[in-house]
């Protein structure tokens, strides 16, 4: 469904992506792993329409995403939960969810979808009139995900959802992602928490210095010695 081919992107003279190829098939959860500065966020920005790539192609449901503005990409069925959540500080939970359904395609059925979001994240229903800046990190992440879900996406992209969150909260959120996927939404997940990501995903790609350095079924990568050494730390060596 999502196909990225030979993608190159730069910030000024700095080449952040040097030819990336990956895909997300319908119903899949694909994890995108790699060290800091590898270009993961850059890739997300290209897919979401915030950054124009220098070369290469991005196709979504067989149509090119070249030069399509971000809000239009939402309309086509991709919703992004950006790094650091990027919420609107003075707005309430409810207002965020309402804004999430801003795209014309998402307006129909938005009341029902809001109920679904509250069903997934009950704590948001309790706090729906609260300003998001008074919520905890985990709750804010839920708002961010909820906002993206309100757009009725067929592909949900998340950039580092576990950042700054307690392990228990991370577990809960990744559990939720599993639920969402089983309901039919494909997921592209950028994560630093390699263990959790590989436990959830079907497939994984490793991005290093702007290039794909490895790819395959998540289980296989869990056993891959390079991955274990580079990303899974001393805990992995014990197994």
């Amino acid at each position, binding site marked *: 469904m999502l196909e990225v081919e030979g993608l190159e992107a730069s910030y000024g003279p700095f080449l952040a992506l040097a030819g990336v190829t990956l895909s997300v098939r319908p119903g899949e959860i694909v994890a995108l792993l790699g060290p800091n500065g590898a270009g993961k966020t850059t890739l997300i920005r290209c897919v979401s329409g915030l950054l124009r790539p220098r070369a290469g192609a991005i196709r979504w449901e067989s149509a090119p995403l070249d030069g399509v503005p*971000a809000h239009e990409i*939402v309309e086509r069925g991709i919703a992004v939960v950006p790094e650091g959540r990027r919420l609107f500080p003075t707005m309430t939970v409810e207002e965020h969810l309402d*804004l999430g*359904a801003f795209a014309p395609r998402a307006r129909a059925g938005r009341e029902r979808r809001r109920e679904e979001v509250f069903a997934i994240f009950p704590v948001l229903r309790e706090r729906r009139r609260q300003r998001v800046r008074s919520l905890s990190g985990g709750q804010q992440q839920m708002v961010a995900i909820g906002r993206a879900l309100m757009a009725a996406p067929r592909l949900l992209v998340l950039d580092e959802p576990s950042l700054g969150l307690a392990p228990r909260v991370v577990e809960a959120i990744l559990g939720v992602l599993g639920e969402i996927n089983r309901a039919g939404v494909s997921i592209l997940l950028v994560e630093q928490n390699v263990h959790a990501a590989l436990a959830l995903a079907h497939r994984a790609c490793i991005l290093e210095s702007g290039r794909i350095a490895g790819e395959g079924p998540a289980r296989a990568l869990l056993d891959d010695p390079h991955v274990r050494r580079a990303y899974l730390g001393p805990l992995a060596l014990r197994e």
Partner: protein
Amino acid sequence: MTAAVLLQQVVLGLLIGGLYGLAAAGLSLVFGVLKVLNVAHGELIMLGGYGAFWLFALAGVDPFVALLAVVPASLLMGALLYHGLFAWVVRAHEETRIKNSLLIGFGLGLALHALAVQLFTADERAVTTAYAGAVLDLGGVSVPVVRLASLALALAITVGLHGLLARWRWGRAIRATAEDWEAAALAGIDVRRAYLLAFSIGTALAGAAGTLVSVGYSISPSIGLEWTLKALIVVVLAGLGSMLGTFVGGLVLGLAEAVSATAFGGPYREVVGLLIFFLVLVARPQGLFTR
């Protein structure tokens, strides 16, 4: 300087303060959403005033009624100005954008001022309706009715604006764009459309302010710079983000001017606002956008 004189000055200061607030609202909206500092905002106010004046002079339209024509016309003019000029400016990053918009606004302001001088001559004008001289006596303080009505209208417009930004779908989109335009785009908001709307509404607010200025006070092609400065002072005082807060900021400026005029003499009325402005700016050198 008696208490009665001071009270009278304070009342007059609050009456014009409401207009300062309205004038600032448009500038604040545009600055907050587009990150564009349109220093021609005062000239837009001036043009709104002339719109009301000529409707009155040529067609006998009561200026408060003229609002119904001037506001939509200003809205349209704002849309044209955005498409013709500021749509280019918003392509740059924030810091370049602010600087470019300052320069563009400067040129635009000069051009509009010169145009007004050509079309309307440099004479001062005011709308003098039949009821213009009516004055209410409230406990020894004279309150010109027209100015009181203007204050009430300015407040009503501000409240309406606040409601618009809170309830209207695109109003919320505008607020979201102001807070984080990338996140807004990711939520499906057409940011360019939000910019267009914000700029048009900002211009409409300027037109409304100008209409009210023409009826209680006076207008001439040269009032542009003065009103841009008033709006800037209020925006810096009140900060960005709240229309009601901006209105209060306007009242505060009016109040400060009244007090200083009574204390130091009329001619120094303007100086206190400018001084406060400079001092507040220097105290917050990081600008108005950080939270």
